[in-house]
């Protein structure tokens, strides 16, 4: 049994967490994440969460709390945004190193100074080297489905997973979302089976001092686990599709016949591009969903299969001094390709809105003789 509900991205995230059979949610409020935790608090108050809900004195404490619970074998979730995520940074590294399969929703919002509420992706992207899986969503349905899948992926690989979506454009925008019943979700994801690290009666010291050599072994095993993610994610999506009829990839490509240009982007901007495609000539969309690990193989395969000449990357972020982050990663993924496409970058850092006019304008400024152009959303 499925039922459509008109909800926003934050509610979709919260309902997915409730359906996932969560043991514990720990969080601290920050705009634009608050609706997620408020919805979960409501579930808890009505006795419908199925797990515990705790609101802590900071994001740092919230993720530390999750670490402790995960060490005890619990399925845990937290949500944050922007400065909250930045404040968690030490713990973000820690839970990956400790192999705690925690799922976190991060609602993109610019980081100060100065204060800004718009959905720059720099908050989550600046956590790219911490050993978390990262998946970007372009709408509320995708948020719902991805959170359920994230638990499966994360617990299998013993790596934490960040599910990312844009503040306001997704977190506060309503759409019809297909919500499976809890018992059906149970067929997709059973109770956590990853095992506790803290076991009463079996005393042990967790995460004590390691030599450089042992540290490297641990880093390598995390790296190798992460590289398994794209294939495993496909498998997980196969199971998900059989149960609920929806499926996603590490990347999702829409290539109209004859497309020679591709627009590559992640998050809500992918949905904007999708809507604009009929108005664009010989242009397709590559929605980057998985960012860590970076699906280089899948990307190159799509670009080669369709013989793409030019890629316009829409980056709602900027690594100061290097440019848009998705464009940087794409360029390095293209290394070694016989005929790599030109990579142009439209930077919407600050959280600037993507419009059809901006896309058309950017496409008109990418002459074939240029291998790379840097364009900015605000002149």
């Amino acid at each position, binding site marked *: 049994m499925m039922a459509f509900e008109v909800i926003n991205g934050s509610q979709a995230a919260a309902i997915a967490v409730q359906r996932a059979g969560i043991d514990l949610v720990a969080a601290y*409020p920050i705009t634009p994440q*608050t609706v997620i935790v408020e919805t979960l*608090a*409501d579930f808890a108050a009505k006795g419908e969460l199925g797990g515990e809900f705790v609101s802590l*004195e900071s994001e740092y404490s919230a993720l530390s709390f999750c670490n402790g619970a995960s060490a005890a074998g619990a399925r845990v979730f937290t949500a944050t945004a922007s400065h909250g995520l930045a404040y968690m940074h030490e713990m973000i590294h820690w839970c990956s190193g400790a192999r705690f399969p925690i799922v976190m929703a991060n609602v993109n919002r610019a980081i100060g100074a100065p204060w800004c509420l718009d959905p720059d992706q720099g908050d989550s992207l600046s956590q790219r080297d911490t050993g978390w899986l990262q998946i970007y969503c372009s709408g509320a349905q995708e948020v719902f489905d991805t959170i359920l899948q994230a638990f499966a992926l994360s617990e299998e690989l013993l790596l934490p997973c960040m599910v990312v979506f844009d503040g306001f454009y997704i977190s506060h925008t309503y759409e019809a979302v297909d919500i499976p019943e809890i018992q059906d979700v149970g067929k997709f994801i059973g109770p956590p089976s990853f095992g506790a690290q803290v076991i009463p009666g079996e005393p042990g010291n967790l995460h004590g001092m390691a030599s450089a050599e042992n540290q490297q072994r641990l880093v390598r095993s995390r790296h190798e686990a992460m590289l398994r993610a794209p294939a495993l994610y496909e498998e997980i999506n196969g199971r998900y599709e059989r149960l609920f009829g929806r499926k996603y990839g590490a990347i999702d490509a829409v290539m109209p016949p004859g497309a020679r240009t591709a627009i590559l982007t992640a998050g809500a901007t992918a949905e904007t591009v999708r809507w604009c495609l009929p108005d664009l000539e010989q242009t397709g969309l590559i929605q980057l969903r998985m960012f860590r690990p970076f699906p280089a193989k899948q990307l190159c395969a799509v670009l080669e299969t369709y013989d793409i000449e030019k890629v316009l990357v829409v980056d709602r972020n900027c690594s100061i001094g290097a440019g848009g982050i998705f464009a940087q990663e794409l360029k390095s993924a293209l290394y070694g390709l016989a005929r790599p496409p030109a990579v142009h970058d439209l930077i919407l850092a600050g959280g600037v809105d993507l419009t059809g006019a901006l896309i058309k304008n950017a496409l008109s400024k990418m002459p074939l003789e240029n291998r790379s152009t840097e364009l900015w959303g605000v002149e």
Partner: protein
Amino acid sequence: MAAIEQLTQDFLRTKKLPHIWCPGCGNGIVTAAMVRAFKRAGFEQRDIVIVSGIGCSSRAAGYLNFNTLHTTHGRALSFATGLKMARPELHVFVIMGDGDCSAIGGNHFIHTARRNIDLNAVIVNNHIYGMTGGQHSPLTPSGKKATTAPLGTLERSFDLLELARGAGATFGARGTAAQPRQLEQLMVRGAKHKGFSVIEALSPCPISYGRRNKLGGPVEMLLDIKNKSVPVERASEMSSEELEGKNVTGLIYAYDAPEFSEEYYRMIEQFKDK
């Protein structure tokens, strides 16, 4: 020009008005008391710096026409400490909310008190995270409802002034938005006190706190705050049972102790030729 208009002209960024606070919010009353206190303390505009954290009350930094720093959630006191150490002659006022100061900024709060640095902390305590929509804070009274505590918060709240005293603050006072003249006087005394001054201002948040807890509108909430406040002089004659659910107001403590920035510069002086 009437005195109040003059004050507005002198000390507020009138172009930034009207403010964004909800109708009936106490933040405006506390901000106005501050502005009057600056005048009464005889401070020059150029010698005042306002540092604020994050939350509804911290928006005051945008309206006050001084050098103002709008900083990060919980860290206002750390920014202010750096500023005061670099320019000890300035009067530094730090505006925080209860969530900002007592939760995420709790660590900085106790260490600022421990150093007894000459900063003036004004903590607008409305018992809730107002800006993010009404989540419970460490100063939400037990049992009161919040979006993150729909059945009422289980946790205990605590006395911020006693925490500050225990950590070494040398001035602690509590006023309310319902008694703005007293609040203003306390702010003047705090501003003139050498050392870390903590002024807690109890203030109504009718939108994110009052509504959910059925505390009435702004007028009822202000009356409630007023009725629950007991002057410190009277409180000393009351039993703890009688004081249950009440808020002791006035100057709770003030004493002298070495002030950090003075001690620091004294040490530099002492060792400079050695």
